């Protein structure tokens, strides 16, 4: 390989270490106005009246938007007013928007808006939402516009239900000697990207809407502004510069809509809306919560026969992307195991919590915590080594997934190889639990992971390559650089294909939906695969054009030629050829005649043969491949005060092919860190009224330097045949098993089943001592 596998530095590296990297909020222009929001102090309340009189007295105020009925928004069910009307449904919901000359004036004015509320009973968890007499978050869900294939259930809090009916569950139970039931729950939390969301909107005199936004889905913004406000898609231009972390949170479209409305209210002037940290945590969409019940059955020897699963995803007040998250939760509802009989209902539930957007892993870290905890409970009941139980049931080519996709050696990674490697790294033979001389308990927990993507069946990705007079190439792709380094990976793929030094490949970082070809959304670990395929196609296209011109010049057939090393030459006689710089802008003969022109390569890739899920059985093909892996966590637990330290976290993932070693390691390590945060410490704390009590970094505490364990990342390489150089998606996979592995390690350490998150010492203490001390 020429450059595949090498740890090439990021293309935007220098910008990022010099402060020159530009993010949305860094953009300012004279005359730009600023918007600030007024937020709901209640999780569920009727809005009785809104009085803006005092707010208008603040100098600099240009517009106040409150109480007005704007088109409802939402990706599958249009249930969300961009600014609350009639009632508020979550703590922190936008109730009013003030536009002023500067943010301080806007803020001052927003504080002077007087809103009278009548509090309503609160739905504080999905389980509560399912109770017969639960208050309704949305009274008339049947009246909302929606896409096909989503079915809100009238007079309930159920936004959608996805069913998996594989095999015959009764047969499964009759073949089972041993059964176990696990109940798991956790509250919503947040992505907490370091860059809070920001959108700038302007409506130009000629009718063009120009939005600059920190988004993972600029092309979706364009489509939704068209859908909600009837502006031609061609007249919506969305710019996305570098994005300061997304993790799924910036795949939802929210501030863009508010910034658009704000601009419209002031005659189209440019308006910026920038979230404070507090707003970013609760007002903008968060990380979904879950209540789950899992029942597993297996033979005496530990072969799984049946899995019955109920997932109640806490979609929060509005369904937006949560419906899709809950659907993906059905797609891979079990762990990566061969189970013939699977019954699953995966529900998206309305509650009075902040609403959910995708979170790195798109339902998988959540469901794997539930499933893999239950697997450990099963192993315990069987008296079987938990790793052995997983090895026995590991999913293999020839087996089918819950949606009945038949797997093969290309669309599935090698799980047994991952398990075996993990066993080695974790020194499994030394035992799972030991007591140190100082009394601390060392324990190891493991889990297995898998994930495919559940994205629109027509999702596509496009790439344009233009050449410069010096023979170098510009790579233009709609992938947003959110930190994953995907655009550097694309440059490597191109460099490999053209056998051209990576320095001669110039990557355009910024996305502009008018001039950049579409990449559906920068989500689901699909950037390398989809955009990578598009790069290869565009390279093919460019190479064809180069060869055509060169064939004339060299008096040979196109098929005689090869492009490599900045030249095009005869395959059998490499010394006969010409420099790329002499053909990529057309070739000029000594007499001035010119043939050809600037070479412009184009490529698109659309996921192939994807289908919708059958509404009754869930049968269908939602994604192209399943990346698998095995993960482990080792903890040191103090049984006197229930504190613990994470010593080591291990990931073995079948990545297909490593394209950039250090970047891949970094992606996986970072994802593991985020998974440990989610599993170990991060959660919104709700009071009984559904208010979030910890919307700040001093109370919502991510890991800090020095609190991190040692990370060990190891890759297995089973190529996905149809992917660029065999590389599988890996951006999320480091995360998705961490909560489960941590839960399993601590359950073993504390000798109690820990089935809730986050795993803080207090939770372990409660589980150990029972609830009799709950009031202390």
């Amino acid at each position, binding site marked *: 390989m020429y450059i595949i596998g090498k*740890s090439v*530095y*990021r293309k*935007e*590296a*220098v*910008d*990022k*270490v*010099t*402060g*020159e*990297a*530009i*993010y949305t*909020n*860094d953009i*300012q222009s004279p005359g730009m106005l600023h918007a600030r929001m007024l937020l709901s102090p209640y999780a569920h309340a009727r809005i009785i009246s809104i009085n803006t009189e005092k707010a208008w007295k603040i100098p600099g105020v240009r517009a106040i938007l409150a109480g007005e009925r704007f088109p409802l928004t939402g990706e599958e069910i249009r249930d969300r007013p961009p600014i609350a009307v009639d009632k508020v449904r979550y703590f922190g919901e936008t109730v009013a928007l003030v536009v002023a000359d500067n943010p301080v004036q806007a803020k001052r004015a927003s504080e002077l808006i007087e809103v009278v509320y009548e509090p309503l009973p609160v739905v504080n968890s999905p389980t509560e939402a399912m109770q017969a007499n639960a208050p309704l978050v949305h009274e008339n869900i049947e009246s909302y516009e929606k896409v096909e294939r989503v079915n809100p259930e009238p007079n309930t809090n159920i936004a959608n239900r996805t069913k998996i009916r594989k095999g015959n569950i009764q047969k499964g139970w009759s073949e089972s000697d041993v059964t176990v039931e696990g109940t798991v729950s956790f509250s919503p939390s947040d*992505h*907490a*990207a*370091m*860059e*809070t969301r920001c959108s700038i909107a302007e409506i130009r005199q000629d009718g063009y809407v120009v939005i600059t936004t920190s988004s993972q889905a600029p092309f979706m913004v364009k489509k939704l502004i068209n859908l909600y406000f009837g502006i031609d898609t061609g007249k919506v231009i969305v710019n996305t510069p*570098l*994005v*300061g*972390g*997304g*993790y799924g949170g910036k795949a939802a479209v929210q501030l863009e809509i508010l910034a658009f409305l704000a601009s419209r209210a002031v005659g189209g002037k440019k308006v910026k809306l920038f979230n*404070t*940290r507090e707003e970013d945590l609760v007002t903008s969409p968060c990380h979904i919560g879950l209540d789950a019940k899992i029942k597993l059955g297996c033979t005496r020897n530990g072969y799984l026969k049946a899995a019955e699963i109920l997932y109640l995803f806490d979609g929060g007040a509005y369904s937006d992307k949560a419906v899709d998250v809950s659907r993906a939760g059905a797609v891979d509802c079990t762990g990566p195991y061969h189970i013939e009989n699977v019954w699953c209902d995966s529900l998206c539930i309305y509650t009075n919590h902040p609403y959910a957007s995708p979170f790195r892993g798109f339902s998988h870290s959540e469901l794997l915590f539930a499933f893999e905890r239950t697997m450990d409970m099963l192993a315990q009941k069987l008296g079987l080594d938990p790793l052995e139980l997983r090895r026995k049931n590991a999913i293999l080519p020839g087996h089918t997934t819950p949606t009945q996709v038949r797997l093969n050696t290309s669309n599935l990674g090698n799980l047994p190889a991952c398990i075996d490697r993990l066993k080695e790294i974790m020194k499994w033979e030394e035992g799972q639990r030991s007591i140190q001389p100082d009394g601390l308990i060392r324990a190891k927990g493991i889990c297995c992971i898998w994930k495919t993507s559940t994205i629109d069946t027509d999702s596509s990705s496009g790439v344009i390559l233009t050449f410069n007079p010096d023979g170098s190439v510009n790579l233009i792709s709609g992938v947003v650089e*959110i*930190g*994953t*380094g995907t655009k550097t990976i694309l440059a490597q793929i191109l460099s490999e294909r053209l056998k051209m030094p990576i320095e001669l490949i110039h990557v355009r970082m910024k996305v502009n939906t008018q001039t950049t070809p579409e990449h559906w959304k920068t989500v689901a670990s699909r950037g390398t695969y989809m955009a990578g395929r598009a790069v290869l196609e565009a390279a093919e296209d460019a190479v064809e054009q180069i060869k055509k011109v060169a064939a004339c010049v060299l008096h040979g057939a196109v098929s005689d030629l090869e492009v490599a090393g900045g030249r095009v030459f005869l395959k059998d006689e490499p010394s006969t050829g010409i420099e790329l710089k002499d053909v990529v802008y057309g070739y000029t003969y000594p007499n001035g005649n010119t043939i050809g022109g600037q070479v412009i390569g184009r490529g698109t890739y659309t996921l192939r043969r994807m289908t919708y899920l059958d509404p009754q059985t869930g049968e269908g093909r939602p994604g192209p491949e399943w990346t698998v892996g095995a993960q482990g966590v080792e903890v040191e637990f103090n049984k006197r005060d229930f504190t613990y330290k994470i010593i080591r976290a291990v990931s073995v993932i079948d990545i297909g092919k490593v394209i950039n070693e*250090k*970047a891949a*390691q*970094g*992606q996986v*390590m*970072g994802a*593991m*860190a*985020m998974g440990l945060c989610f599993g170990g410490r991060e959660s919104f704390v709700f009071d009984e009224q559904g208010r979030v009590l910890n919307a*700040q*970094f*001093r109370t919502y505490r*991510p*890991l*800090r*330097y*020095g*609190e*991190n364990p*040692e*990370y060990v990342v190891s890759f297995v390489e089973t190529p996905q045949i149809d992917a660029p150089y065999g590389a599988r998606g890996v951006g999320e996979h480091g995360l998705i098993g961490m909560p489960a592995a941590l839960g399993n390690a601590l359950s073993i350490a504390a000798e109690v089943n820990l089935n809730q998150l986050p795993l803080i010492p207090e939770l372990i203490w409660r589980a150990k001592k029972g609830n009799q001390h709950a009031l202390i």
Partner: protein
Amino acid sequence: MKTSSSPFREVSLHVNGEIKPVLIKPSDTLLYILRVKLGLTGSKPGCLNGDCGACTVNVDGMAMKSCLMFAIEAPGKRIITIEGLKGTPIQHAFIKEFAFQCGYCTSGFIMNCYSLVENYPDANDELITEMLESNICRCTGYQEIENAVKSVLSSNKNLEK
């Protein structure tokens, strides 16, 4: 130009080796003035209350969260922002060790590391942690940042020998 009732004061700030006259209000934070008035947007707002370190700059040789300092306190002090670092070893080390992904925390982290390296070239693990735990990075696992800062500290030591 300024009247006694105007909330604005004209002051001179010493930033990245240059003297910058700037109109400030007593309530303006240094971060706000750097970003909005001086166009130095490398320092980032991440929380605006001292929790995240994305806004870290160097004031008179020490790391300082610029969201926690009023600009009115800055005259007479030497301020270095990320834009003032040119090809320093710590910047190279961040690139070499892949110590960032999205890059949003990076200016703050580098400024913090820069102060650490300048002031304590022999810093031990404990001191490194004490200094760096004031910044949050959401993308990396910190291991990369640790490698970067240590590579610079140890190379300093090698030079001394």
